[in-house]
């Protein structure tokens, strides 16, 4: 067999180089979230009317939504990357080399994850460090992990989209449409009083993240009687692990379906 690790790393390195040179992608994945943070900060952080829970401003509560948006963009970038590799023949070129599709998928997950880390560092640094969003430091690593798990699921969603589209432009359009629709439907940008939010991974990521890093309940309490905030801003009966399980289920399903469908559609 081939040396999977080294080849996978080289694929990841190649993907990152390609990504960094794509200015359009860099704008939507790095610059746009920072712009959104600025807009939220200016719109929601001043005045008594903007205080939502426990003295937190709307900006503090909406900050996790920006994290969800930023990480969810992986569905768009991975959809474009895989659709491009189908169209420009690079996937076929790689298929003729002693490399398995496992290397290709793993390389994509690694490059996207590394890039997500860069995004998170920028968003956290700007949001917490400069704009002063409220957070609980002790819970931050766990919140970071939740964001990463969601990001890997987003790569799976990108793979599903790329499987059905034969142009990177089409993949970009559909992935952007699905990501933005889910962002609004989930109430991640603005709270939405609708049961539909429960069917979106974005909602669960935002709420778990919010509980861990912003509201700052004790983790042991959250494990037994969590208070995930419902769309109506009331506390739910769900303990936090149910939300984590739902996020894991979404991620596993998207990755499983993404790999299966992409393989089926591109194996000639």
């Amino acid at each position, binding site marked *: 067999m081939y040396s999977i690790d080294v080849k996978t790393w*080289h694929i990841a390195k*190649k993907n990152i*180089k*390609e990504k960094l040179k794509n200015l359009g992608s860099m704008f939507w994945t790095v610059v746009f979230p920072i712009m959104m943070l600025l807009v939220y900060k200016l719109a929601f952080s001043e005045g008594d009317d903007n205080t939502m829970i426990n003295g937190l401003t709307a900006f503090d509560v909406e900050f996790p939504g920006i994290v969800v948006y930023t990480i969810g963009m992986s569905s768009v970038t991975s959809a474009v990357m895989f659709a491009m590799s189908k169209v420009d023949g690079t996937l*076929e070129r790689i298929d*003729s080399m002693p490399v398995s599709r496992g290397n290709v998928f793993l390389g994509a997950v690694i490059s996207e994850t590394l890039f997500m880390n860069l995004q998170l560092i920028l968003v956290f640094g700007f949001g917490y460090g400069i704009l002063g969003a409220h957070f609980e430091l002790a819970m931050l690593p766990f919140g970071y992990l939740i964001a990463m798990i969601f990001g890997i699921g987003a790569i799976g969603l990108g793979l599903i989209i790329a499987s059905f589209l034969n142009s990177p432009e089409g993949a970009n359009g559909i992935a952007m449409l699905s990501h933005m629709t889910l962002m609004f439907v989930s109430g991640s940008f603005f709270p939405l009083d609708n049961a539909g939010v429960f069917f979106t991974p974005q909602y669960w990521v935002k709420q778990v993240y919010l509980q861990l890093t912003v509201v700052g309940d004790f983790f042991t309490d959250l494990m037994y009687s969590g208070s995930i905030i419902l769309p109506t801003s009331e506390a739910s009966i769900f303990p936090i692990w149910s939300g984590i399980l739902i996020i894991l289920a979404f991620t596993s399903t998207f990755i499983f379906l993404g790999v299966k469908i992409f393989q089926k559609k591109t194996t000639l």
Partner: protein
Amino acid sequence: MDVSIKEEAQIKYSDPNQFYDNKHSTNFIIEVQDLEKSFNGIKAVDGISLKIRKGELFSLLGPNGAGKSTTIRMLTTVLKPSNGNARIKDYSLIKEKDKIKPLIGVCPQENVVFKALTAEDNVEFVGHMHGMDPVDLKKRTNNLLEKMNIAGLKKSAKSFSGGMKRRLNLVMSLVHHPQILFLDEPTAGLDPQARRLVWDFIKELKNTGMTIILTTHDMVEADALSDHIAIMDHGKIIAFGTLEELKKDSKNGNILEFSFSSKKELIHAKNKLERINNIKKITTMENNKLIISFTGGVKTFKQEILHEIESFESLHFREDSLEDIFLKLTGRGLRN
């Protein structure tokens, strides 16, 4: 066209295995048996059989849509055959793809490069995928890029000209020292100077003992480079051999090209030529031109023909070319 010769060719090559066995007996690196590929019920490759010797340059010649690229894509493991199989260095194409991949290099028909990367990054990526030692890879990359006149470029491949991308494509296909190199239309879109550079490079590679399989619809290219040529049309191999063997098989004889200043002169000459015995075929071309294939000695024929026809613009004798052979076998030109 001469239908009987076309049919004869197809019957002759319907069982090429027997033909090759009688002709060459040893040292085959590729053996293709009844390979077939269908897309939505349409056969792109229709049960071809081939044997290619180690170290030779083998050309698959045919018009667009003949099935050359599909054949190459199957032999390079990216396309699964609908039927049949091939053995590449004794490994089964169906069952042992993983053992075949390290042995081959592929230069696809399209310029398949990672556009955001530099030439060096592109080549090194391929080397890494083949598990090359990083120091050797660096040296080999620089050497090959220098040979192809694209070394030291810091810009990304998307800003390269078509010719530069083509040459980069070629370098990417052989950085890992493949034993078998598949070149799918390697000089398509290149200017004459770059084409000559690539030809010289291919000849150099051949001298190292590398087996090269080339597809082309350029007969000059096939003629200049090949040890053996297989002519493909409609998914089938309709002729196989060295250029000399193909010429001999086609039984075209010698060719005379006549140019006339007017249509009237051409018709007058054609009527007279039809009375000459050793003329096999007269073809009327555009621009008031006649192509005449004939048997027998050139000198005698020239005397005889000049006795009959006095008024013409130019005449030119030449040997039967690959294009004539192809025209005869398929009834159409390579670019049709």
